[in-house]
């Protein structure tokens, strides 16, 4: 996968993850172009489209569009399910996730994504395992958030 974008029905970018090196200018250009293309499509149209030399796979969940760019030999249907699994992960973590959760906790959305996909490839597809990793991180957060500065971490995992 080359990149993943989350944007709202109004075209506001909510999350962007790039797995190939691109300049900020190029990223903005791509985002603008794709958001426009995808938003222009009608509901019953197919979830795939050719764009430049990439394949775009997208799906809408409530007010949010999830949009992935994959390469020629990549599998469209399994990418659709990557999107779905990510949505499930967010849903489970936030408890019926909505756009606002992602806006206010964008850093969490990134952390969850990094546990699931790394370098554009599935790292861990088990929902349990991904959530376990995030839970453990949250646990660390609470422990260290208690003001115990400088304590070494010698537990967890």
């Amino acid at each position: 996968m080359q990149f993943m974008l989350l944007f709202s029905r109004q075209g506001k970018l909510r999350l962007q993850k790039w797995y190939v090196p691109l300049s900020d200018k190029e990223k903005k250009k791509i985002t603008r172009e794709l958001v426009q293309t995808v938003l222009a499509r009608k509901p019953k149209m197919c979830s795939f489209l050719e764009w430049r030399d990439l394949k775009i796979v997208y799906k809408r969940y409530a007010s949010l569009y999830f949009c992935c760019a994959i390469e020629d030999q990549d599998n469209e249907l399994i990418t659709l399910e990557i999107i779905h699994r990510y949505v499930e992960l967010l849903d489970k973590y936030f408890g019926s996730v909505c756009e606002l959760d992602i806006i206010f906790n964008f850093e969490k959305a990134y952390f969850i994504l990094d546990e699931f996909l790394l370098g554009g490839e599935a790292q861990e597809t088990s929902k349990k395992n991904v959530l376990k990793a995030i839970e453990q991180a949250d646990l660390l957060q609470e422990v260290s958030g208690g003001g115990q500065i400088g304590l070494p971490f010698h537990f967890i995992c």
Partner: protein
Amino acid sequence: MPAVSKGDGMRGLAVFISDIRNCKSKEAEIKRINKELANIRSKFKGDKALDGYSKKKYVCKLLFIFLLGHDIDFGHMEAVNLLSSNKYTEKQIGYLFISVLVNSNSELIRLINNAIKNDLSSRNPTFMCLALHCIANVGSREMAEAFASEIPRILVAGDTMDSVKQSAALCLLRLYKTSPDLVLMGEWTSRVVHLLNDQHMGVVTAAISLITCLSQKNPDEFKTCVSLAVSRLSRIVSSASTDLQDYTYYFVPAPWLSCKLLRLLQCYPPPEDGAVKGRLVECLETILNKAQEPPKSKKVQHSNAKNAILFEAISLIIHYDSEPNLLVRACNQLGQFLQHRETNLRYLALESMCTLASSEFSHEAVKTHIETVINALKTERDVSVRQRAADLLYAMCDRSNAKQIVAEMLSYLETADYSIREEMVLKVAILAEKYAVDYSWYVDTILNLIRIAGDYVSEEVWYRVIQIVINRDDVQGYAAKTVFEALQAPACHENMVKVGGYILGEFGNLIAGDPRSSPLVQFNLLHSKFHLCSVPTRALLLSAYIKFINLFPETKATIQEVLRCDSQIRNSDVELQQRAVEYLKLSSIASTDVLATVLEEMPPFPERESSILAKLKKKKGPGAVSVTELEDSKREGGELNGGGDRGPDTAAMAASNASTPSPSADLLGIRSAAPVGAAPASAGSLLVDVFSEAGPIAPSAAVNDDGFLRFVCKNNGVLFENQLLQIGIKSEYRQNLGRMYLFYGNKTSVQFASFTTTVSCPGELQSHILSMHLCTKPVEPLVEGGAQIQQVLNIECLTDFSDAPLLNIKFRYGGALQNLTLKLPVTINKFFQPTEMTSSDFFQRWKQLSQPQQEAQKIFKANHSMDTEVLKAKLLGLGTALLDNVDPNPENYVCAGVIQTKGQQVGCLLRLEPNAQAQMYRLTLRCSKDSVSRRLCELLAEQF
């Protein structure tokens, strides 16, 4: 799952985000952001040391602002500080900021790498994962340099936690993609391959992406993965849906891993080991069988996951292209999907079938679905699906169904989306040509194409139909009759007029027997379109008219009348005017014999690859596969004796003047190679252009470098002059950049036509002076008598060089083509910066440059005045500093300077020792680069 601890400390962030969301306008948002940026900046700059929490909060705010699309130019340092925090959250935010915002800021990357190194060696799996995620996210070369050797160790070490292994595998993959030269698997190869056997499904899922990528690059080293992959796949495929616990997704066991395994196998040919192959075929059959079973769930996720595996299996079957049974089963399965109610499946089935169509085993099976595909082309509501259907029709086309498919594509064209029309036109043109049994069908098809989608018919397409008609005499009469009829339409496309003009000009005689298409009727028909056409088409028509005069002497008077009228002979377009004048004269002066020779029928075009194919190949897309295939079959069969990717007009030029070297490249190629400001002649000289380039051609002069050496020590002056033309230059240089103004003066009282100039860099120089481009203003193609035109040349010196760039000038004076090549006086010394220094400095540096190759010396006879002032002026003109009181001998001259190239600076010292008595000089140069010493010595030896 506990609800998220929403207020886990960063209240300030939440408040800020709400503020932004409450902004009513873009301006308000920007104002709020600027306020926040100022606040953060002052906090970061403030005297009070910030605690980790505040730092984290502010860094997070900056990240948020960046993700909103604003530029962030500070805070990187604070983020890097967070990396070494002991608190997990602070570290995590630090890493997130770095992953999103740092590309390869060289100053910070060392600090970042240090922090990563610490975390990697911490043996705390959570920290290790964070560090690996960061490497995978940034993936810069610097990181590859620092960690590419460490990560494989982590990946295969026995005591590494599973989660760390997963991150390490994908981290390594990312580094391999950015810097393959730095990731050396060597000793690790076999242990990495054996990760396919790992008990932890997550580890296998991550590792297989790495293995696939490495296998693509080094298939031999990794080939043991094939049997491991087959057995892993076999275990998954035969497992019950509950066996794999959390790796089962909507009743489908490990769909991601299955797809990746099937993908990995596509890097290799079918397994040679019979047992392995048997097991694999079994797997593929099981997957195909499962597709027929009733679904275990109604959820779309279930069918998507299941079908993802199915499509990947079909890809593998197509990749092997050796199991007829499996290929046909795959085709039948896809056939079912063609009518599925899920748009996604129809789309994918069409796409996948496209590749099946090219297999000899399944081509026939694919063809049976023609009606469904045609129906899809007509009824699909989504254009991307229709596009797939058109691609598939193109791929499944052969002699048996060509007429049907071409007809369907033509009728689809009438309503096709604008975005795909041009490609459709090319495809129809190719199919019509490839499967033409009778050429009248071919001609009809192309003319229909022009009628339906004239705007999308590119030059290649209409050139091609003309080439084919010219090469096939059995179709010429039919073609003439058909274009004649097509031109009857009250509104016909300009491309139709072009084809019509050309064909009637060549073969109008074949239909002239019929009184309804007598010569005059033909002429009047063509001429009725004349005024509505663009200049190039009118030029073509004029040539068709002169051909008429030859074919039908009875039209001579009428046509001469037309040529003679003011709108032709005084046309403001010079090309049209010239043709009118020349054709008029030709028709009145030349004898019938001469006329017949000059205006003879076009000779056949040589057999060449179709330029349409070339064009389609340029347009990428799923059709590309079948294009290659089409090409192959063409090479073998050679179904058309037409050919030649020269456009008709280049051929015309070649025919009309045998002494002109006939360029065999595609016309388009010639045009794109033409310099900016090329004369319109190339666009207009259609058919016959008797006078163009027919005059005595000035020998394409050897390079003239008379003026060149005079400009080593000066920047302005007259570079070249003969009876016709004077070329003056003015130039200025600063550091490694230069700008040269070229002035071309016409010394005669007659206009120069088709005046073009090109600057080129000979061989070696090309890589040295790169942007030697003509400035935006190209020269005017016409230089009036007595006039002068100017051109600007921008120069950038990238590294030192010896050869000068060449300036080529072509123009027509009277009938004769003038061709002139000059060496432009751009020499390495132009990029000198003078350096003042004291005597001791000079000699100290002189000694430092003491290697024999750094010095160049020449002793030579004086050719010019040895007067001190003259010498001084020359040495100053060289660009160096002339140093006084440096040489103990006051007769001698010493100079110092630095040559500025983009890549480096070359220090140069020079000493010139005149011997007035002997009328000799000794010149010595010492430079930090030996090639510069030599070159300067050569240049200067001619100056004194």
